[in-house]
């Protein structure tokens, strides 16, 4: 099959490599030329090293790209973690359809940062979804979906990683099915009355409120945790002595709070205990300006952090 891959990020990288390994005919790759670094390659540079044709990702938004794609006799377009909306006339160039790998269950977690929103909302399960692309973001019929549990220790990074690990095989299944019998591909329409779309917004503008229950605060911290890598949400921020402090690593203690919300009530090398409105939490790492440091090196018992 002749495949156009529109891809970014870890999932896109992994998909590209799996397609090459499976010896699929990759017509070309659409990605951002300016991602990655001199040391850590991007999808674009990896495709370049593989000798694949490449087009800058902005092209997919425009119908001016359609004639180029129409000339390629495409069977399938695969969209993997690319954030650009593909023009519907470009989608139509794929004989068997265009398909998107989405790191979240649909229709309840459409849009961006689904893994983080799921943790923030206290979900106990999540899933990765492969769906046919239609007009509208993440609206098309569901082809395959793999659910998994969200563990208490899971973070934004680990849930995203699980989505990639479980999602890439769905693409293999899709291509096998299309190759064998395209009419047998399951296509379950979404009930869009249950749709929730998440954009670029960050909960509470990234500001932490100590008057909230400890469990909600910890969920916010975990949802934002992509450490040691950059988080799409930054870190929930409190204020101390006029400075913003990002809470990077924290957990529940199971102990009642022993002071007003935001008060540092104890400290040891592993972390500091901070009172919330109900329970105490243990904060192990914080971001102060550009650096992540141990909370115990910065906070002192008796200090009171304020809301962000």
């Amino acid at each position, binding site marked *: 099959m002749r495949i156009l891959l529109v891809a970014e990020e870890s999932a896109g*990288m992994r998909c590209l*490599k799996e397609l090459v390994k499976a010896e699929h005919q990759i017509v070309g790759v659409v990605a951002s030329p300016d991602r990655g*670094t001199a040391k*850590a390659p991007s999808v674009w540079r990896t495709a370049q090293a593989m000798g694949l044709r490449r087009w800058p990702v902005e092209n997919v938004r425009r119908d001016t790209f359609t004639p180029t794609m129409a000339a390629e006799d495409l069977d399938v377009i695969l969209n993997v973690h690319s954030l650009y909306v593909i023009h519907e006339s470009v989608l139509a160039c794929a004989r068997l359809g265009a398909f998107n790998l989405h790191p979240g269950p649909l229709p309840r977690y459409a849009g961006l940062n689904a893994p983080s929103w799921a943790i923030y909302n206290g979900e106990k399960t999540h899933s990765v979804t492969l769906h046919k692309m239609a007009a509208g973001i993440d609206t098309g019929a569901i082809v395959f979906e793999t659910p998994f549990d969200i563990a208490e220790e899971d973070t934004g990074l680990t849930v995203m990683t699980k989505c990639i690990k479980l999602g890439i095989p769905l693409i293999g299944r899709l291509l096998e099915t299309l190759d064998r019998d395209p009419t047998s591909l399951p296509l379950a329409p979404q009930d869009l009355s249950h749709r929730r779309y998440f954009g670029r917004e960050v909960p509470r503008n990234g500001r932490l409120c100590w008057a909230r229950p400890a469990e909600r605060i910890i969920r916010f911290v975990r949802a934002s945790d*992509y450490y*040691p890598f950059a988080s799409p949400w930054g870190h929930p921020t409190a204020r101390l002595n006029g400075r913003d402090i990002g809470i990077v690593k924290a957990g529940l203690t199971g102990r009642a709070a022993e002071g007003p919300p935001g008060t540092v009530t104890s400290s040891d090398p592993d972390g500091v205990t901070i009172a919330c409105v109900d329970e105490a939490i243990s904060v192990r790492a914080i971001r102060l300006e550009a650096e992540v440091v141990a909370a115990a090196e910065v906070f002192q018992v008796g200090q009171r952090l304020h809301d962000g």
Partner: protein
Amino acid sequence: MTDEQNLKRLEAIFSEQLNIAVPARDTDLIGEGYLDSVMFVDLLLVLEQEFGITIPLEQLEFDNFQTINKIADFVESQAVGLE
């Protein structure tokens, strides 16, 4: 597999599969920008495939992936756990 064999295998994984040119076995991969979030996830999946191990994501300790030396130790510890 000996430590040296694992180390050589990891060096090959970095250069041939991940297309990352790591200068030395003790190079700080994350601190010096050789592993970003994209390549880190790719590395985890490649390690699982190549060494037949399962990396428990909920207990991910990034110290284990700081250098090629440490990754070799980690892979060895996971493989021993399987025996």
